[in-house]
C-alpha cells in the first residue's frame, strides 16, 4: 500500500523538512545535518523511510550518497486531494437535499 507508506512518511515534521530541503537541492547526509537539529543517524533513518515511500532518488558518488526529492512520489497524495475535492461538494448537495426534507 504505497499510499499509507507515503502518508506515514509525510506525517513526521522532520521528514517533511528533509523532503523540502531535498526539493531545493541535492544533498548528502552531512549536508542535510547542517540545516537540521537532528542527529546524523536519525537523518539516515528518515531518509530510508522517505526513499521507501518513493519520495527520494539516491545517487552514489564515491563514498557518499546524494539525495534529491522525487516529485512524482507525491502523486498519490495529489490524487487523494483531487478525489475529495470532488467528493465533498457532491455529498454536501445530498446533505442539502436531506435538510430540505427534514422538518424543523
Amino acid at each position: 500500500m504505497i499510499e499509507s507508506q507515503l502518508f506515514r512518511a509525510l506525517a513526521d515534521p522532520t521528514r517533511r523538512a528533509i523532503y523540502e530541503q531535498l526539493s531545493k537541492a541535492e544533498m548528502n547526509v552531512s549536508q542535510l545535518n547542517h540545516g537540521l537539529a537532528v542527529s546524523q543517524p536519525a537523518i539516515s533513518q528518515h531518509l530510508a523511510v522517505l526513499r521507501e515511500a518513493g519520495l527520494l532518488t539516491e545517487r552514489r558518488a564515491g563514498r557518499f550518497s546524494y539525495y534529491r526529492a522525487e516529485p512524482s512520489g507525491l502523486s498519490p497524495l495529489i490524487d487523494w486531494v483531487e478525489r475529495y475535492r470532488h467528493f465533498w461538494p457532491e455529498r454536501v448537495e445530498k446533505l442539502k437535499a436531506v435538510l430540505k426534507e427534514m422538518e424543523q
Partner: protein
Amino acid sequence: MSETPAVARELSLEFAIDEAPEKLWHALTEPRIVEQWLAPVVRNDPTTAGFSCELLATDPGRSVSYRWRDPDLGESIVTFGVSEREGGFSQLSVLQEIVPMPAVTMSGALGCSLAIAAPASRRVLTAANQARPALLRAA
C-alpha cells in the same frame, strides 16, 4: 517562512447552507441522518465494507469530528464546522486530514518510532484549496 510546508496533507472546503445552524448541526450529528447523505456511523468497526464514519469528538453546535474510512484511500479525520451566516443561515466548513496508517511494512525499530506519528498537527498544514500549486511547490 519555515512554517510554510511544501506538502499539503489536508483539504479544507467551505459551503454556504441556506438552513439554520441548529438544523445543520442536527444533520451532521444524528447518525440516522448522517447515513442518508454521507455514510453509516459505526463504532470502532473497521470491518464494515465501504465508507463509514466513527464519531470522535464534538464541540456542541460548532464542530464535530469523525474518523472517516475510505475502502480505497484509507483513513482520515473529517471535521465539520458550523457557523452562522447573515440572515440566520449557516456556513459549513469541511476539514479533512490524513491519518497515517499504523506501521505494517516498516522494520521493527523504524515502525516503533513511526507508529506515534500524530494525526496532522495544525501548525504544519497548509490549506489545500489551491491544492495543485501548494502540493507541487516542492517540485
